[in-house]
């Protein structure tokens, strides 16, 4: 299941760090951030709890950049 999110992130390097960190979350197969468009495509594993994962993504991202915002 692939979904697109909007992501507010200020620096390109942080975006690529966030991308790497989110890809490592359990239940997420792949994540790609398009820094310029402020978009992120996330491929979830089969049957993953997306709401829970979104919260986790948010947490991981905030750890790298505190005012990072992810939403649908």
């Amino acid at each position, binding site marked *: 299941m692939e979904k697109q999110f909007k992501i507010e992130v200020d620096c390109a390097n942080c975006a690529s760090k966030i991308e790497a960190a989110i890809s490592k979350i359990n239940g997420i197969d792949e994540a*790609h951030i398009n820094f310029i468009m402020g978009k992120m495509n996330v491929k979830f594993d089969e049957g993953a709890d997306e709401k829970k994962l979104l919260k986790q993504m948010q947490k991981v991202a905030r750890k790298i950049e505190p005012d990072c915002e992810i939403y649908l």
Partner: protein
Amino acid sequence: MTKKQKNKLIRIVVGFILTVMIYLLPIPEKWEWAALLVPYFVLGCDILKKALSGIVRGQVFDENFLMGIATVGAYLIGEYVEAVAVLLFYQLGELFESYAVGKSRRNISELMNIRPDYANVMTDGEIQKLDPNEVEVGTEIIVFPGERVPIDGIITEGETQLEVSALTGESLPAEASVGTAVFSGSVNISGKIKLKTTKVFGESTVSKILDLIQNAAMKKSKSENFITRFARVYTPAVCISALLLFLLPPLVSIAMGNAPMWSEWLFRSLTFLVISCPCALVISVPLSFFGGIGAAGKKGILIKGSNYLEKLSDTKTVVFDKTGTLTKGTFEVTGSEEVNCSEKELLYIAAALESGSKHPIAKSVVAYAKDKLQVNTAENIKEIPGQGISGTVDGKTALAGNTKLMKTVGIELEETEKASTVVHVAFDGEYKGCIYISDVIKKTIPEALKILNRRKIKTVMLTGDRNAVAQKIANELSVSEFYSELLPNDKVEHLEKLLEGKGEKGTVVFVGDGINDAPVLARSDIGVAMGALGADAAIESADIVLMDDDLLKLCKGMEISKKTLKIVRQNIAFSLAVKFLCLILGALGIANMWISIFADVGVMVIAVLNAMRTMK
């Protein structure tokens, strides 16, 4: 500018003015440090705050954290002005970066300024402007002259001319009337039309194209991956070098019995920290690709990933499907040979017979004849399977077909393998001549092939057609190699051979119509589908989509790709060179902190401006 950006700009200006004022005002030197704390905090409060939370979060290589250490350190050893200047330039750089990104984002949407805002829907006898997202399939919508078609549909009323330049890059308007399928994004030029929508907005051509372009940047190029990997190593490496630079020389000095000069080496090592952020590179590379993809999109070339744009510049072989790609895939009369009669007579007889048949060859003869004379349909028309047609024209027996058919009335003809399909004509027992029918090469193909040949790109044609036909086309277009009489599986095999033979480097591009050649498209390094406007399957299966039928666009795409790659390489080389130069000069004590940050931000600005050139 966004609110965030304005805020930052105000802080930069205030910080700058305060610093200058402190210089101009007669402040005693021993209180200078205290006065400069004001602009320091004006400029750096957010960085310090983020740096503190970075420590809590365990993010030691966070650039705010590094910038924080560098400036606090500078302050502690008495370099107040340096600290303030570093913050000033750093903030300026950040502001510019976010402005540039915002600008390119807007440029792309403007470049592809094809997303319509509303759809005119008739409700209760009144026209209402609705959000296209809310319009269901099968709704009647009205498009006035000058408006953009919001959703794909079929014309049910009215006729007009449509311009599809936003989709194909071609500005020639096309006629459209009842029954014509219309694509969203085209502009209605002359008349009011009513459409019945065939898709929802999200599935319509415009939305698809925009999505493709916007998502293309997610398929990363090799250069981007290189930069990402580099960035991951660069920051820690610079930080460790900074630490070593701070510790080693003084310790060595102590061991040798000299003064350690701690503060001098601390200052030099802090210089390292301010250029430890690889942002110039990390932003300029994807920005270049983004711009290149946007520029291509504007010309009707949809590139579905930065990786494809990158590989396209290294094209060594282009493989073509013949029918539907190099040639139109329709039959046309290309010539005739008459025996004891005029061309008109020959055509008159042939067309009279063929007008009774629905075979594509027959249709082409009739279409050709209709341009030249009045076509009457023959009587007693009989189709003879595998041979041709017989009938009565002006009271006499007439035949049109192959040599076998001619033999039945005693006309012996030599069987030769020709590149065209030949229709022989007999009238009243006498041979009258023949008409040549063949597939026609598309208009811009010869020029495109010439360009490819000039660029020393190997061209290969694969076709299921007869050898003689393939030979003729290959000669006409001077294709380097061709393989004929292939089954679909053979095409994949041939392509695999080419892929094996090319070695490590060089890209093999396959060009097809994207409909029957999906396996070959998928197998090649880059699959290109031509004439894909309205053919969703082709848009799905290809890596690069040419919206119209113009192969010259592929050549154009290669140029854009080359230009983009050149800019990317310039940026990488330039940024790395300046960074290393700063590191060396910093270590030697020649460049101080604020010169380094100035150079670093300057490089970023130049790299970003250079990257934005790709959009043109």
